[in-house]
Protein backbone atom coordinates (compact mmCIF):
# COMPACT_ATOMS: atom_id res chain seq x y z
CA UNK A 1 0.00 0.00 0.00
CA UNK A 2 1.40 3.28 -0.98
CA UNK A 3 0.68 6.52 0.66
CA UNK A 4 0.63 9.81 -1.17
CA UNK A 5 1.71 12.95 0.60
CA UNK A 6 0.12 16.08 -0.71
CA UNK A 7 2.05 19.20 0.22
CA UNK A 8 0.23 22.46 0.14
CA UNK A 9 1.78 25.19 -1.94
CA UNK A 10 2.97 28.02 0.32
CA UNK A 11 1.04 31.23 0.00
CA UNK A 12 2.62 33.98 -2.07
CA UNK A 13 5.65 33.68 -4.30
CA UNK A 14 9.32 33.29 -3.53
CA UNK A 15 11.92 35.88 -4.46
CA UNK A 16 13.33 33.59 -7.14
CA UNK A 17 9.92 33.29 -8.75
CA UNK A 18 9.64 37.04 -8.91
CA UNK A 19 13.14 37.23 -10.39
CA UNK A 20 12.33 34.55 -12.99
CA UNK A 21 9.39 36.60 -14.11
CA UNK A 22 11.45 39.81 -14.22
CA UNK A 23 14.30 38.17 -16.13
CA UNK A 24 11.89 36.60 -18.58
CA UNK A 25 10.16 39.86 -19.40
CA UNK A 26 13.37 41.91 -19.58
CA UNK A 27 15.02 39.22 -21.70
CA UNK A 28 12.11 39.11 -24.13
CA UNK A 29 12.10 42.89 -24.46
CA UNK A 30 15.87 42.97 -24.92
CA UNK A 31 15.82 40.21 -27.56
CA UNK A 32 12.98 41.88 -29.37
CA UNK A 33 14.94 45.16 -29.41
CA UNK A 34 18.15 43.54 -30.58
CA UNK A 35 16.35 41.64 -33.35
CA UNK A 36 14.84 44.88 -34.60
CA UNK A 37 18.00 46.54 -35.87
CA UNK A 38 15.98 49.15 -37.71
CA UNK A 39 14.42 50.17 -34.40
CA UNK A 40 17.84 50.53 -32.78
CA UNK A 41 19.16 52.56 -35.69
CA UNK A 42 16.09 54.77 -35.90
CA UNK A 43 16.21 55.30 -32.13
CA UNK A 44 19.72 56.67 -32.58
CA UNK A 45 19.22 58.51 -35.85
CA UNK A 46 16.42 60.66 -34.45
CA UNK A 47 18.49 62.41 -31.73
CA UNK A 48 21.58 62.46 -33.92
CA UNK A 49 19.72 64.37 -36.62
CA UNK A 50 18.79 66.93 -34.00
CA UNK A 51 22.36 67.04 -32.74
CA UNK A 52 24.22 67.21 -36.04
CA UNK A 53 21.82 69.25 -38.13
CA UNK A 54 19.48 71.24 -35.92
CA UNK A 55 22.06 72.13 -33.26
CA UNK A 56 24.69 73.03 -35.86
CA UNK A 57 22.25 75.36 -37.60
CA UNK A 58 21.11 77.03 -34.42
CA UNK A 59 24.51 77.21 -32.78
CA UNK A 60 24.94 80.92 -33.42
CA UNK A 61 21.26 81.88 -33.19
CA UNK A 62 20.57 80.85 -29.63
CA UNK A 63 23.00 82.32 -27.15
CA UNK A 64 23.30 80.38 -23.95
CA UNK A 65 24.07 82.11 -20.68
CA UNK A 66 25.71 80.35 -17.76
CA UNK A 67 22.90 78.50 -15.98
CA UNK A 68 23.17 75.65 -13.46
CA UNK A 69 24.44 72.96 -13.66
CA UNK A 70 26.91 74.49 -16.11
CA UNK A 71 29.77 76.54 -14.71
CA UNK A 72 30.90 78.11 -17.95
CA UNK A 73 29.67 78.90 -21.46
CA UNK A 74 28.58 75.90 -23.48
CA UNK A 75 27.84 75.23 -27.11
CA UNK A 76 24.24 74.69 -28.11
CA UNK A 77 24.82 71.01 -28.86
CA UNK A 78 26.07 70.54 -25.30
CA UNK A 79 22.90 72.20 -24.05
CA UNK A 80 20.48 70.02 -26.02
CA UNK A 81 22.26 66.71 -25.34
CA UNK A 82 20.31 65.96 -22.09
CA UNK A 83 17.08 66.92 -23.87
CA UNK A 84 17.88 64.46 -26.64
CA UNK A 85 18.65 61.76 -24.09
CA UNK A 86 15.22 62.35 -22.58
CA UNK A 87 13.74 62.36 -26.09
CA UNK A 88 15.17 58.89 -26.68
CA UNK A 89 13.42 57.75 -23.51
CA UNK A 90 10.20 59.51 -24.44
CA UNK A 91 10.05 57.78 -27.83
CA UNK A 92 11.07 54.51 -26.24
CA UNK A 93 8.34 54.82 -23.62
CA UNK A 94 5.78 55.49 -26.33
CA UNK A 95 7.16 52.69 -28.46
CA UNK A 96 6.81 50.32 -25.52
CA UNK A 97 3.22 51.42 -25.22
CA UNK A 98 2.83 50.75 -28.92
CA UNK A 99 4.21 47.27 -28.42
CA UNK A 100 1.67 46.71 -25.65
CA UNK A 101 -1.13 47.62 -28.00
CA UNK A 102 0.41 45.23 -30.53
CA UNK A 103 0.73 42.52 -27.87
CA UNK A 104 -2.88 43.00 -26.96
CA UNK A 105 -3.97 42.72 -30.59
CA UNK A 106 -1.85 39.61 -31.10
CA UNK A 107 -2.93 37.97 -27.88
CA UNK A 108 0.50 38.01 -26.21
CA UNK A 109 -0.80 40.33 -23.55
CA UNK A 110 -3.24 37.71 -22.39
CA UNK A 111 -0.38 35.25 -21.95
CA UNK A 112 1.36 37.78 -19.79
CA UNK A 113 -1.62 38.79 -17.74
CA UNK A 114 -2.73 35.24 -16.94
CA UNK A 115 0.51 34.73 -15.02
CA UNK A 116 -0.27 34.04 -11.35
CA UNK A 117 2.04 36.83 -10.25
CA UNK A 118 0.39 40.12 -9.27
CA UNK A 119 -0.66 42.19 -12.25
CA UNK A 120 1.05 45.28 -10.87
CA UNK A 121 4.32 43.43 -10.64
CA UNK A 122 4.00 42.14 -14.20
CA UNK A 123 3.43 45.64 -15.50
CA UNK A 124 6.32 46.96 -13.41
CA UNK A 125 8.58 44.28 -14.96
CA UNK A 126 7.42 45.34 -18.39
CA UNK A 127 8.22 48.91 -17.44
CA UNK A 128 11.69 47.99 -16.21
CA UNK A 129 12.33 46.08 -19.42
CA UNK A 130 11.39 49.12 -21.50
CA UNK A 131 13.63 51.33 -19.35
CA UNK A 132 16.55 48.91 -19.73
CA UNK A 133 16.17 49.11 -23.50
CA UNK A 134 16.10 52.92 -23.33
CA UNK A 135 19.33 52.89 -21.31
CA UNK A 136 21.05 50.95 -24.09
CA UNK A 137 19.91 53.57 -26.58
CA UNK A 138 20.93 56.52 -24.41
CA UNK A 139 24.42 55.21 -23.71
CA UNK A 140 24.91 54.46 -27.42
CA UNK A 141 23.90 58.08 -28.09
CA UNK A 142 26.32 59.35 -25.42
CA UNK A 143 29.12 57.36 -27.02
CA UNK A 144 28.50 58.94 -30.42
CA UNK A 145 28.09 62.38 -28.81
CA UNK A 146 31.50 61.97 -27.14
CA UNK A 147 33.09 61.89 -30.58
CA UNK A 148 31.20 65.13 -31.31
CA UNK A 149 33.04 66.72 -28.37
CA UNK A 150 30.05 66.51 -26.04
CA UNK A 151 31.88 65.10 -23.10
CA UNK A 152 30.44 65.59 -19.61
CA UNK A 153 32.69 64.82 -16.62
CA UNK A 154 33.60 61.10 -16.59
CA UNK A 155 31.75 60.56 -13.33
CA UNK A 156 28.66 62.03 -15.01
CA UNK A 157 28.23 58.85 -17.09
CA UNK A 158 27.67 57.02 -13.81
CA UNK A 159 25.72 59.65 -11.87
CA UNK A 160 23.27 60.04 -14.75
CA UNK A 161 22.26 56.37 -14.54
CA UNK A 162 19.80 56.66 -11.60
CA UNK A 163 18.26 59.75 -13.23
CA UNK A 164 17.87 57.85 -16.51
CA UNK A 165 16.25 54.91 -14.74
CA UNK A 166 13.78 57.17 -12.97
CA UNK A 167 12.94 59.23 -16.04
CA UNK A 168 12.72 56.03 -18.11
CA UNK A 169 10.25 54.61 -15.62
CA UNK A 170 8.20 57.81 -15.64
CA UNK A 171 7.99 58.03 -19.42
CA UNK A 172 7.39 54.28 -19.71
CA UNK A 173 4.59 54.45 -17.14
CA UNK A 174 3.07 57.36 -19.05
CA UNK A 175 3.25 55.33 -22.23
CA UNK A 176 1.64 52.39 -20.47
CA UNK A 177 -1.15 54.57 -19.16
CA UNK A 178 -1.77 55.96 -22.64
CA UNK A 179 -1.62 52.53 -24.27
CA UNK A 180 -4.38 51.30 -21.97
CA UNK A 181 -6.64 53.83 -23.64
CA UNK A 182 -5.65 53.03 -27.23
CA UNK A 183 -7.88 50.51 -28.89
CA UNK A 184 -6.08 50.08 -32.16
CA UNK A 185 -2.52 50.19 -33.38
CA UNK A 186 -3.47 52.82 -35.98
CA UNK A 187 -4.35 55.27 -33.21
CA UNK A 188 -0.71 55.53 -32.27
CA UNK A 189 -0.25 58.44 -34.71
CA UNK A 190 -2.48 60.42 -32.36
CA UNK A 191 -0.04 59.74 -29.54
CA UNK A 192 2.69 61.29 -31.66
CA UNK A 193 0.70 64.44 -32.29
CA UNK A 194 -0.95 64.87 -28.93
CA UNK A 195 1.69 63.57 -26.54
CA UNK A 196 5.23 63.33 -27.90
CA UNK A 197 5.48 66.58 -29.84
CA UNK A 198 3.81 68.86 -27.27
CA UNK A 199 5.79 67.28 -24.43
CA UNK A 200 9.07 67.64 -26.27
CA UNK A 201 8.65 71.15 -27.62
CA UNK A 202 7.03 72.63 -24.50
CA UNK A 203 10.02 71.73 -22.37
CA UNK A 204 13.56 72.81 -21.60
CA UNK A 205 14.96 70.22 -24.01
CA UNK A 206 15.70 72.64 -26.85
CA UNK A 207 15.90 76.02 -25.12
CA UNK A 208 16.46 77.17 -21.55
CA UNK A 209 13.28 78.21 -19.73
CA UNK A 210 14.50 81.77 -19.08
CA UNK A 211 14.51 82.22 -22.84
CA UNK A 212 11.01 80.75 -23.14
CA UNK A 213 9.89 83.17 -20.42
CA UNK A 214 11.25 86.10 -22.44
CA UNK A 215 9.14 85.02 -25.41
CA UNK A 216 5.94 83.95 -23.67
CA UNK A 217 5.29 83.86 -19.91
CA UNK A 218 2.30 81.54 -20.45
CA UNK A 219 4.37 79.02 -22.37
CA UNK A 220 6.91 79.23 -19.56
CA UNK A 221 4.28 78.04 -17.05
CA UNK A 222 3.21 75.27 -19.43
CA UNK A 223 6.85 74.17 -19.69
CA UNK A 224 7.19 74.28 -15.90
CA UNK A 225 4.13 72.06 -15.51
CA UNK A 226 5.39 69.59 -18.11
CA UNK A 227 6.86 66.49 -16.40
CA UNK A 228 9.15 66.03 -19.40
CA UNK A 229 10.87 69.34 -18.54
CA UNK A 230 11.72 67.91 -15.14
CA UNK A 231 12.94 64.65 -16.64
CA UNK A 232 15.27 66.69 -18.88
CA UNK A 233 16.52 68.81 -15.97
CA UNK A 234 17.00 65.77 -13.75
CA UNK A 235 19.14 64.18 -16.45
CA UNK A 236 20.99 67.46 -17.17
CA UNK A 237 21.98 67.95 -13.52
CA UNK A 238 22.84 64.30 -12.96
CA UNK A 239 25.07 64.32 -16.03
CA UNK A 240 27.20 66.90 -14.20
CA UNK A 241 27.10 65.08 -10.85
CA UNK A 242 24.42 67.31 -9.36
CA UNK A 243 20.85 66.85 -8.16
CA UNK A 244 17.92 69.05 -9.09
CA UNK A 245 15.68 68.32 -6.12
CA UNK A 246 12.53 69.87 -7.58
CA UNK A 247 12.86 67.82 -10.75
CA UNK A 248 13.61 64.71 -8.74
CA UNK A 249 10.44 65.19 -6.67
CA UNK A 250 8.31 65.89 -9.76
CA UNK A 251 9.66 62.92 -11.72
CA UNK A 252 9.36 60.54 -8.76
CA UNK A 253 5.82 61.76 -8.05
CA UNK A 254 4.74 61.50 -11.68
CA UNK A 255 6.27 58.02 -11.95
CA UNK A 256 4.16 56.87 -8.99
CA UNK A 257 0.98 58.48 -10.33
CA UNK A 258 1.42 57.16 -13.89
CA UNK A 259 2.35 53.72 -12.61
CA UNK A 260 -0.68 53.46 -10.33
CA UNK A 261 -2.84 54.77 -13.16
CA UNK A 262 -1.45 52.16 -15.54
CA UNK A 263 -2.00 49.31 -13.06
CA UNK A 264 -5.57 50.42 -12.46
CA UNK A 265 -6.19 50.86 -16.16
CA UNK A 266 -4.95 47.36 -16.94
CA UNK A 267 -7.01 45.71 -14.22
CA UNK A 268 -9.72 43.84 -16.11
CA UNK A 269 -12.15 44.21 -13.24
CA UNK A 270 -11.86 47.98 -13.17
CA UNK A 271 -9.74 49.21 -16.01
CA UNK A 272 -10.09 50.13 -19.59
CA UNK A 273 -9.02 46.71 -20.80
CA UNK A 274 -12.49 45.48 -19.82
CA UNK A 275 -13.96 47.17 -22.84
CA UNK A 276 -13.17 44.30 -25.12
CA UNK A 277 -11.85 40.76 -25.03
CA UNK A 278 -8.08 40.58 -24.71
CA UNK A 279 -6.40 40.08 -28.02
CA UNK A 280 -9.38 40.97 -30.07
CA UNK A 281 -10.60 44.43 -29.32
CA UNK A 282 -10.77 45.70 -32.85
Amino acid sequence: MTSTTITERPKGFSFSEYMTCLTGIVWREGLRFLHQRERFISALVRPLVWLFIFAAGFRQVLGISIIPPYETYILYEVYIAPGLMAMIQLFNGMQSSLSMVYDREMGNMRTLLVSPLPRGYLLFCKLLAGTAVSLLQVYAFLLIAWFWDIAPPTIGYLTVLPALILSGLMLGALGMLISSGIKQLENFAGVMNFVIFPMFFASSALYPLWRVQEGSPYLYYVCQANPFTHAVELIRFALYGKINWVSLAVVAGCTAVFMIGAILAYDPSRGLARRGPAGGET
Partner: protein
Amino acid sequence: MWRHCLLPGLAVWLAAAAPAHAYIAYVSNEKGNTVSVIDTDSWTVTNTIKVGQRPRGIEFTRDGKFVMVAVGDDDTIQMIDTKTHEIADTLPSGPDPELFTQDTTGKILYVANENDNTVTIIDIAKRARLGDIQVGVEPEGMTMSPDDKILINTSETTNMAHFIDTTKREIVANVLVDSRPRFAQFKPDGSELWVSSEIGGTVSIIDPVKHAVTGKIEFSIPGLRREAIQPVGIGITKDGKTAFIALGPANRIAVVDAATHTVTKYLLVGQRVWHMAFTPDEKYLLTTNGVSNDVSVIDVASQKVIKTIQVGELPWGITITPQ
Protein backbone atom coordinates in the same frame (compact mmCIF):
# COMPACT_ATOMS: atom_id res chain seq x y z
CA MET B 1 54.57 44.41 6.32
CA TRP B 2 51.16 46.00 5.94
CA ARG B 3 52.56 49.17 7.46
CA HIS B 4 55.09 49.43 4.63
CA CYS B 5 52.24 49.42 2.14
CA LEU B 6 49.82 51.49 4.17
CA LEU B 7 52.02 54.48 4.90
CA PRO B 8 53.08 55.27 1.33
CA GLY B 9 49.51 54.64 0.26
CA LEU B 10 48.24 57.06 2.88
CA ALA B 11 50.80 59.64 1.79
CA VAL B 12 49.69 59.34 -1.84
CA TRP B 13 46.05 59.62 -0.82
CA LEU B 14 46.73 62.69 1.31
CA ALA B 15 48.71 64.30 -1.50
CA ALA B 16 45.86 63.63 -3.89
CA ALA B 17 43.24 64.87 -1.45
CA ALA B 18 45.13 68.05 -0.54
CA PRO B 19 43.89 71.17 -2.37
CA ALA B 20 46.00 72.48 -5.21
CA HIS B 21 48.33 75.39 -4.47
CA ALA B 22 46.22 78.50 -4.37
CA TYR B 23 47.42 81.43 -6.41
CA ILE B 24 46.05 84.92 -6.58
CA ALA B 25 44.99 86.43 -9.91
CA TYR B 26 44.57 90.18 -10.45
CA VAL B 27 42.28 91.34 -13.25
CA SER B 28 42.17 94.92 -14.55
CA ASN B 29 38.63 96.09 -15.33
CA GLU B 30 38.98 98.77 -18.01
CA LYS B 31 35.56 100.35 -17.59
CA GLY B 32 35.00 99.68 -13.90
CA ASN B 33 38.30 101.34 -12.93
CA THR B 34 38.95 98.46 -10.57
CA VAL B 35 41.15 95.43 -10.16
CA SER B 36 39.40 92.15 -9.21
CA VAL B 37 41.31 89.72 -7.00
CA ILE B 38 40.59 86.02 -7.65
CA ASP B 39 41.54 83.12 -5.40
CA THR B 40 42.46 80.20 -7.68
CA ASP B 41 41.61 77.65 -5.01
CA SER B 42 37.98 78.64 -4.51
CA TRP B 43 37.69 80.39 -7.90
CA THR B 44 35.97 83.35 -6.27
CA VAL B 45 36.57 87.08 -6.31
CA THR B 46 37.92 87.85 -2.86
CA ASN B 47 38.48 91.59 -3.25
CA THR B 48 37.92 94.48 -5.64
CA ILE B 49 40.48 97.25 -5.55
CA LYS B 50 39.68 100.75 -6.77
CA VAL B 51 42.41 102.04 -9.06
CA GLY B 52 42.90 104.94 -11.49
CA GLN B 53 41.00 105.49 -14.72
CA ARG B 54 41.04 102.96 -17.54
CA PRO B 55 43.26 100.20 -16.09
CA ARG B 56 44.60 97.88 -18.79
CA GLY B 57 48.14 96.38 -18.74
CA ILE B 58 48.74 94.57 -15.46
CA GLU B 59 51.73 92.58 -14.15
CA PHE B 60 53.39 91.47 -10.94
CA THR B 61 56.81 92.80 -10.02
CA ARG B 62 59.30 89.93 -10.09
CA ASP B 63 59.53 89.87 -6.27
CA GLY B 64 55.74 89.50 -6.03
CA LYS B 65 55.39 92.47 -3.66
CA PHE B 66 53.49 94.73 -6.05
CA VAL B 67 51.06 94.52 -8.91
CA MET B 68 51.70 97.20 -11.51
CA VAL B 69 48.69 98.44 -13.46
CA ALA B 70 48.72 100.92 -16.34
CA VAL B 71 45.91 103.43 -15.79
CA GLY B 72 45.74 104.99 -19.24
CA ASP B 73 43.48 107.98 -18.55
CA ASP B 74 45.60 108.96 -15.53
CA ASP B 75 48.83 108.70 -17.58
CA THR B 76 50.64 106.63 -15.00
CA ILE B 77 51.44 103.13 -13.71
CA GLN B 78 50.04 102.41 -10.26
CA MET B 79 51.66 99.94 -7.88
CA ILE B 80 49.28 97.88 -5.72
CA ASP B 81 50.77 96.48 -2.52
CA THR B 82 49.83 92.76 -2.62
CA LYS B 83 49.60 92.58 1.19
CA THR B 84 47.40 95.61 1.85
CA HIS B 85 45.73 95.80 -1.59
CA GLU B 86 46.25 99.56 -1.56
CA ILE B 87 47.94 101.79 -4.10
CA ALA B 88 51.41 102.13 -2.63
CA ASP B 89 53.17 104.10 -5.35
CA THR B 90 53.19 105.17 -8.99
CA LEU B 91 55.65 104.92 -11.86
CA PRO B 92 56.20 107.74 -14.35
CA SER B 93 54.98 106.52 -17.77
CA GLY B 94 54.21 108.64 -20.84
CA PRO B 95 50.63 109.60 -21.84
CA ASP B 96 48.06 106.78 -22.02
CA PRO B 97 50.16 103.79 -20.99
CA GLU B 98 48.59 100.54 -22.22
CA LEU B 99 50.87 97.50 -22.03
CA PHE B 100 54.29 97.03 -20.49
CA THR B 101 56.96 94.40 -19.95
CA GLN B 102 59.96 94.05 -17.66
CA ASP B 103 63.37 92.47 -18.06
CA THR B 104 64.12 89.10 -16.45
CA THR B 105 65.76 90.74 -13.43
CA GLY B 106 62.68 92.83 -12.78
CA LYS B 107 64.67 96.08 -12.60
CA ILE B 108 63.66 97.82 -15.80
CA LEU B 109 60.11 98.38 -17.04
CA TYR B 110 59.25 99.22 -20.66
CA VAL B 111 55.89 100.90 -21.19
CA ALA B 112 54.00 101.42 -24.48
CA ASN B 113 52.32 104.86 -24.42
CA GLU B 114 49.45 104.61 -26.88
CA ASN B 115 48.86 108.35 -27.43
CA ASP B 116 52.49 109.39 -27.65
CA ASN B 117 54.05 106.85 -30.04
CA THR B 118 56.78 106.18 -27.51
CA VAL B 119 58.08 103.46 -25.24
CA THR B 120 59.10 104.74 -21.81
CA ILE B 121 61.96 103.09 -19.90
CA ILE B 122 61.53 103.09 -16.11
CA ASP B 123 63.80 102.03 -13.25
CA ILE B 124 61.27 100.19 -11.03
CA ALA B 125 63.26 100.40 -7.77
CA LYS B 126 64.00 104.10 -8.13
CA ARG B 127 60.56 104.83 -9.60
CA ALA B 128 62.48 106.93 -12.12
CA ARG B 129 62.05 107.49 -15.86
CA LEU B 130 65.24 106.63 -17.71
CA GLY B 131 64.20 107.74 -21.19
CA ASP B 132 61.89 107.24 -24.16
CA ILE B 133 62.18 105.47 -27.48
CA GLN B 134 60.21 106.72 -30.49
CA VAL B 135 58.21 103.92 -32.13
CA GLY B 136 55.31 103.59 -34.61
CA VAL B 137 51.79 104.95 -34.27
CA GLU B 138 49.66 103.58 -31.39
CA PRO B 139 52.20 101.31 -29.70
CA GLU B 140 50.68 98.41 -27.77
CA GLY B 141 52.23 94.92 -27.70
CA MET B 142 55.35 94.62 -25.53
CA THR B 143 57.59 91.61 -24.92
CA MET B 144 61.20 90.89 -24.05
CA SER B 145 63.46 88.26 -25.62
CA PRO B 146 64.53 85.55 -23.13
CA ASP B 147 68.11 86.91 -23.15
CA ASP B 148 66.92 90.46 -22.38
CA LYS B 149 68.70 91.81 -25.46
CA ILE B 150 65.74 92.60 -27.70
CA LEU B 151 62.56 94.39 -26.74
CA ILE B 152 59.60 94.01 -29.09
CA ASN B 153 56.94 96.67 -29.51
CA THR B 154 54.02 96.42 -31.93
CA SER B 155 52.36 99.55 -33.26
CA GLU B 156 48.69 99.16 -34.09
CA THR B 157 48.43 101.71 -36.89
CA THR B 158 51.89 101.30 -38.42
CA ASN B 159 51.27 97.53 -38.54
CA MET B 160 54.80 96.75 -37.48
CA ALA B 161 56.75 94.81 -34.90
CA HIS B 162 59.70 96.99 -33.84
CA PHE B 163 62.86 95.23 -32.69
CA ILE B 164 64.55 97.44 -30.07
CA ASP B 165 68.11 96.86 -28.88
CA THR B 166 67.86 97.21 -25.07
CA THR B 167 71.50 98.30 -24.72
CA LYS B 168 71.45 100.96 -27.41
CA ARG B 169 67.78 101.73 -26.72
CA GLU B 170 67.04 102.12 -30.42
CA ILE B 171 65.09 100.29 -33.10
CA VAL B 172 67.28 97.84 -35.00
CA ALA B 173 64.63 96.28 -37.24
CA ASN B 174 61.00 96.62 -38.27
CA VAL B 175 58.85 93.75 -39.49
CA LEU B 176 55.60 94.43 -41.31
CA VAL B 177 52.73 92.25 -40.13
CA ASP B 178 48.98 92.10 -40.80
CA SER B 179 46.63 94.88 -39.79
CA ARG B 180 46.47 96.11 -36.16
CA PRO B 181 49.11 94.10 -34.32
CA ARG B 182 48.00 93.88 -30.70
CA PHE B 183 50.26 91.52 -28.85
CA ALA B 184 53.70 89.91 -29.14
CA GLN B 185 55.15 86.87 -27.43
CA PHE B 186 58.46 85.02 -27.77
CA LYS B 187 58.56 81.24 -27.61
CA PRO B 188 60.28 80.31 -24.32
CA ASP B 189 63.47 79.30 -26.17
CA GLY B 190 63.47 82.57 -28.14
CA SER B 191 63.40 80.77 -31.49
CA GLU B 192 60.20 82.43 -32.71
CA LEU B 193 58.30 85.64 -32.13
CA TRP B 194 54.51 85.46 -32.43
CA VAL B 195 52.56 88.64 -33.21
CA SER B 196 48.75 88.73 -33.27
CA SER B 197 46.97 90.98 -35.78
CA GLU B 198 43.47 91.88 -34.67
CA ILE B 199 42.02 93.15 -37.97
CA GLY B 200 44.18 90.91 -40.16
CA GLY B 201 42.86 87.91 -38.25
CA THR B 202 46.25 86.18 -38.17
CA VAL B 203 49.20 85.46 -35.93
CA SER B 204 52.52 86.07 -37.68
CA ILE B 205 55.44 83.80 -36.88
CA ILE B 206 58.65 85.82 -37.09
CA ASP B 207 62.24 84.62 -37.18
CA PRO B 208 63.89 86.96 -34.63
CA VAL B 209 67.33 86.57 -36.19
CA LYS B 210 66.38 87.12 -39.81
CA HIS B 211 63.64 89.60 -38.90
CA ALA B 212 61.32 87.94 -41.38
CA VAL B 213 57.82 86.51 -41.25
CA THR B 214 58.23 82.77 -41.77
CA GLY B 215 54.61 81.70 -41.37
CA LYS B 216 51.12 82.71 -40.40
CA ILE B 217 48.47 81.07 -38.30
CA GLU B 218 44.95 81.51 -39.65
CA PHE B 219 41.69 80.70 -37.97
CA SER B 220 38.37 79.38 -39.17
CA ILE B 221 35.37 78.66 -36.97
CA PRO B 222 32.25 77.14 -38.58
CA GLY B 223 29.36 79.57 -38.49
CA LEU B 224 31.49 82.65 -37.78
CA ARG B 225 32.38 85.37 -40.24
CA ARG B 226 36.09 85.87 -40.77
CA GLU B 227 35.83 89.47 -39.52
CA ALA B 228 34.56 88.20 -36.16
CA ILE B 229 37.79 86.34 -35.57
CA GLN B 230 40.25 88.86 -34.10
CA PRO B 231 43.38 87.41 -32.47
CA VAL B 232 44.72 89.37 -29.49
CA GLY B 233 46.31 87.72 -26.43
CA ILE B 234 48.80 84.85 -26.76
CA GLY B 235 49.94 82.34 -24.15
CA ILE B 236 52.64 79.71 -24.83
CA THR B 237 53.41 76.89 -22.38
CA LYS B 238 56.92 76.76 -20.86
CA ASP B 239 57.78 73.63 -22.85
CA GLY B 240 56.97 75.59 -26.03
CA LYS B 241 54.65 72.87 -27.30
CA THR B 242 51.19 74.40 -26.98
CA ALA B 243 49.92 77.92 -27.56
CA PHE B 244 46.58 79.49 -26.70
CA ILE B 245 45.35 82.47 -28.70
CA ALA B 246 42.45 84.71 -27.68
CA LEU B 247 40.17 85.43 -30.64
CA GLY B 248 38.31 88.50 -29.32
CA PRO B 249 34.67 88.71 -30.49
CA ALA B 250 34.79 85.11 -31.74
CA ASN B 251 34.48 84.22 -28.03
CA ARG B 252 36.97 81.42 -28.53
CA ILE B 253 40.46 80.48 -27.49
CA ALA B 254 42.35 78.70 -30.25
CA VAL B 255 44.60 75.88 -29.11
CA VAL B 256 47.63 75.71 -31.40
CA ASP B 257 50.31 73.10 -31.82
CA ALA B 258 53.29 75.45 -31.42
CA ALA B 259 55.61 73.19 -33.42
CA THR B 260 53.45 72.82 -36.53
CA HIS B 261 51.53 76.10 -36.09
CA THR B 262 48.22 74.32 -36.67
CA VAL B 263 45.04 74.97 -34.74
CA THR B 264 43.94 71.81 -32.97
CA LYS B 265 40.90 73.02 -31.09
CA TYR B 266 38.67 75.99 -30.32
CA LEU B 267 37.44 76.51 -26.77
CA LEU B 268 34.29 78.50 -26.05
CA VAL B 269 34.80 81.23 -23.45
CA GLY B 270 33.05 84.52 -22.64
CA GLN B 271 32.44 87.42 -24.99
CA ARG B 272 35.37 89.37 -26.50
CA VAL B 273 38.15 87.36 -24.95
CA TRP B 274 41.21 89.58 -24.70
CA HIS B 275 44.22 88.55 -22.60
CA MET B 276 45.25 85.53 -20.56
CA ALA B 277 47.65 84.25 -17.90
CA PHE B 278 48.81 80.81 -16.77
CA THR B 279 48.98 79.77 -13.13
CA PRO B 280 52.70 79.19 -12.29
CA ASP B 281 52.20 75.40 -12.34
CA GLU B 282 50.53 75.77 -15.78
CA LYS B 283 47.57 73.69 -14.64
CA TYR B 284 45.16 76.48 -15.49
CA LEU B 285 44.91 79.30 -17.98
CA LEU B 286 42.70 82.27 -17.11
CA THR B 287 41.23 84.48 -19.83
CA THR B 288 39.59 87.90 -19.54
CA ASN B 289 36.28 88.22 -21.39
CA GLY B 290 35.60 91.95 -21.86
CA VAL B 291 31.97 92.14 -22.95
CA SER B 292 30.58 89.40 -20.69
CA ASN B 293 32.52 90.84 -17.71
CA ASP B 294 33.99 87.52 -16.65
CA VAL B 295 37.09 85.37 -16.52
CA SER B 296 37.13 81.84 -17.91
CA VAL B 297 39.29 79.10 -16.43
CA ILE B 298 40.81 76.55 -18.80
CA ASP B 299 42.22 73.24 -17.61
CA VAL B 300 45.43 73.18 -19.65
CA ALA B 301 45.99 69.41 -19.59
CA SER B 302 42.48 68.45 -20.71
CA GLN B 303 42.06 71.62 -22.81
CA LYS B 304 38.60 72.22 -21.40
CA VAL B 305 36.94 75.33 -20.02
CA ILE B 306 35.95 74.35 -16.51
CA LYS B 307 34.55 77.53 -15.01
CA THR B 308 33.69 81.15 -15.66
CA ILE B 309 33.86 83.75 -12.90
CA GLN B 310 32.08 87.11 -12.89
CA VAL B 311 34.46 90.05 -12.30
CA GLY B 312 34.27 93.84 -12.79
CA GLU B 313 33.24 95.86 -15.82
CA LEU B 314 35.17 95.18 -19.05
CA PRO B 315 38.00 92.94 -17.80
CA TRP B 316 41.12 93.54 -19.90
CA GLY B 317 44.42 92.25 -18.50
CA ILE B 318 45.33 89.57 -15.98
CA THR B 319 48.37 88.58 -13.93
CA ILE B 320 48.85 85.71 -11.48
CA THR B 321 51.14 85.33 -8.44
CA PRO B 322 54.63 84.52 -9.73
CA GLN B 323 55.31 81.79 -7.11
